[in-house]
């Protein structure tokens, strides 16, 4: 197993909203999906998902209803509210800006070191 790292602050909320954006989904399914998409790189204790879900619900970003699953059991399904969608878009955009900026900084410092060594920066650093 690759070493697991903690999620940066606020990322869990973003991931949950992203998953819920695809359609109504219950807590267990969200946990499964998170595990899949993060390819086990990001480890979230499954339980800690729920306080985050409840917090998002109380902030009005998610709405929840009790519905039947395919297996016929009652489960609590979360879906994105309009406010939640707007929040998700805003947050996604800001994450993208941030990660681009971080990438830029990393590239720059790499270039800086190379030039101090008096070498040409190699092509295709990415």
């Amino acid at each position, binding site marked *: 197993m690759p070493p697991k790292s903690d999620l940066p602050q606020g990322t869990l909320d973003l991931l949950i909203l992203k998953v819920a954006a695809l359609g109504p989904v*219950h*807590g*267990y399914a969200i*946990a499964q999906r998170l595990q899949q998409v993060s390819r086990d790189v990001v480890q979230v*204790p*499954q*339980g*800690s998902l*729920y*306080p985050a879900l*409840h*917090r998002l619900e*109380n902030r009005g970003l998610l709405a929840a209803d*009790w519905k039947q699953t395919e297996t016929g*059991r*009652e*489960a*609590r399904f979360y879906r994105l509210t309009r406010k939640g969608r707007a929040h998700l878009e805003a947050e996604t955009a800001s994450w993208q800006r941030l990660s681009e900026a971080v990438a830029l900084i990393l590239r720059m410092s790499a270039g800086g070191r190379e030039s101090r060594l008096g070498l040409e920066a190699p092509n295709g650093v990415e």
Partner: protein
Amino acid sequence: MTWLNRLLRRRKLEDQLDRELQFHLDQYAADLIERGADPAAARRRAQIEFGGAEQIKEACRDARGTRWVEDFAQDLRYSLRAWRQNPGFATVAVLTLALGIGATTVMATLVHSVLLNPLPFRDPRRMVSVHGAEPAWNVALFGDENLSNPDFRDLQRQSRSLNITGWVFDNGTLSEPGDPEYVTEFDASANLFSVFGVPLTLGRSFQRDEDRPGGAPVAILGYTFWRKHFGGSPSVLGASLVLDTARYTVVGVAPAQFEPGGVEADVYTPLGRHTGPYLMRRGPHPVTTVARLMPGATLEQAKNELSILGRRLSAQYPDTNQDRSFIARTLAPDVTGVRPTLWLLFGAVTLVLLITCADVASLLLARAVSRGREFAMRVALGAARGRLARQCLTESAVLAVAGGILGVIVAATGIKPFVAAWPGALPRADEVSLDWRVLGFALLLSLASGLLFGLAPALRAPSAQLEQTIRGGGRAIGGSRRLHGAFVACEMALAVVLLVSAGMLGDTLLRLSNVNPGLDPANVLTARTALSPTVLDSPPKTRAMWDGLLARIRRVPGVQAAAMVDTVPMRNGNNPLGYWLSPPAPPENRMPMALATCVSPDYLKVMRIPLLHGRFFDDHDNLSSEPVIVIDEVMSGHAFGGENPVGRQLWSQMGDQPARIIGVVGHVRYYGLANDDQTRVRGQAQVRDQFYYPFAQLPDRFVRRWSQLMSIAVRAGINPLALVEPVKSELRAVSRDQVLYEVNTMQQLARGTIEPQRFLLLLFGVFAALALLLATVGNYGVLAYLTRQRVPEIGVRIALGATSGAVTRMVLRQSLAMVAIGVIAGVAGALAAARILTSAVDGMAAIEPVTVLLMITVLVASALVAGFIPARRAARIDPITALRQ
């Protein structure tokens, strides 16, 4: 779901949370089983990967944002349970607090209603009082100068910035309907009620054409008088009454509690109708003047206008208005007499409240320390320090609020009797009521005191050395002993302040009660007397009426002597007059002043004032003989030095003729026992002179006015109050419309002059006793607690050979150390309090070392008693059991 919904539907949310988490676990386990895991192992793994269910639930609950309310409710339930388990402690604490908060609330209500509340008139900030200002008028002696009636009328007509009204305080005999009765009367300008902005209870105000000479004879009744005499009936409008032989028609009833100048009138008549000489001239100034600023006008404009009008009148009437100007001041209630008393009591009551807080705090602290183990356990189980502190504060707040509510009940029921018990009349007494501001104050006070005495235990909530605390079972560690000592010292210090103050007051009262007032107040009856209005128009008839009346009263069985006097000592009213020894008269403001008393010959016999030189008046001193005068020893000293003044001549403001001094009598404490009458002469305070002149030589022009003010004084061989009815019937026998009012014995009047001191002593005595009791209880509680904490240590000492006497001494020494610090701080506080008392209370004795020592002895004795029980208990400790603990 809104916040409130989440709070109220808590149970449903909990249920849903359970089901949601259960679903997750079940589903995960099912998936694992599907992938071939053993069912038991699958459930186990699911639970492990899920994490601690309770922690997750807690985190979910936190996410609801209703947490603090739930915690608070929990703390509340917990506190109530705790108090139920220990009802004695809770009851004592709540009752003490209720007393402290109740007493403070009563005093706060009084301070608020009497001193701070605005006057009960419409927009009182725009109201002003108007006074005369001239160099000859001695404000310190006579108070603010009123206006002469013509000046008043001129200002009223000419002012553009002020709507001016005024009234003359008067009195008269109401002879119809019902029994003749003496009434207080306001001769008032027509706009009186409109300027004050208060609507009449019934009927109408005076009209302008009634407020002039020859206007229709109409009257307005005072509210209380109307209730008392007409049963509050509306049919009083149109009724007729006879006042000083003139018939009036009632046109209105004044508003309830309408007391401009602190007096409620019985009857109002239009000022303009009255044409007595003192209302026609600019010399006398009987008109009390109040005004309302016109819309848009400022006080500054009004002052400027008044000084312009004043200059114009000076130019017009140089004889009377030469140096006279007029000033306006924002209208303020006259509460100068009670202000210091109220603040003093408020201060004393605050001290009691502080002691109460310190007491409850030390009890709570003792409890918290003995609960140290419980708290440590909770911290070990994950309770946050802040959370524990919050719980401590909740517990004390529950106590405080319970005490506060009870205190408000105490205040609400106690305030009326308290106001009724106030010596003399408390100004604005009928405006006193608990209002929401004071209730808010009481609530704030109880919460603040809760915080104050809850804080110490809260701060002690353990953080470190948990294991030690849990194992140690709550032995006193470190600072708690010092903290306890501080509380005891505080209580002691506050108690010393109150005890010394009470001691000083007691000392003062004792001294004042033994002061010789210069006359013998035992068995003397005094009463104002209104002659029949029908005889007042003729001075000879009036004189004859008085002579006949005194003769009849002398014949009443039990009467030893009877005299008339215009101003009775130690009662309201005085007549200061300037005098000089050789003409011409000095300017009025440079004249020496003396209290002048107009009497009949037997006055000296009635009051038993000692005659020092010469003779007193007799029946031969009359209008046809040489004017005579008798002065007191003080005046003799001031005016004649060591010489014998008998036979010398004296001029006074009574008349142009000099009077021959025929005798010197003893000085009388005219204003009572607390303080002698002081006056300032060339910047130096000195006792004021007194002289007497005979009514028989009073010029005719004064006879009517003087007769309206006269009192009779009777020396009795029996209880003087038994003479009231016989004297009354003698009065009636001469003429049916003659009445006796303001009946007092001299003893009552003398006692009345030190009533404020007596009242203060009573309250300070109660407060001091309460403080002593509370401090003793607090001291005992703390010592008992500290000694219990030291049981193992004392056990070791005894095992090592300490005698029981040594142990007792050790505990007592600990107690006395706390007391000593408190006493030292308290004496410093008491010295400050003594300074305040001396400046605020008339006749207050300076602080006596004996008083302080006595009070400290009392306190230390009580501390020893409080310490003795725990000390004895400590001395009896069995070392074996103690060491096993």
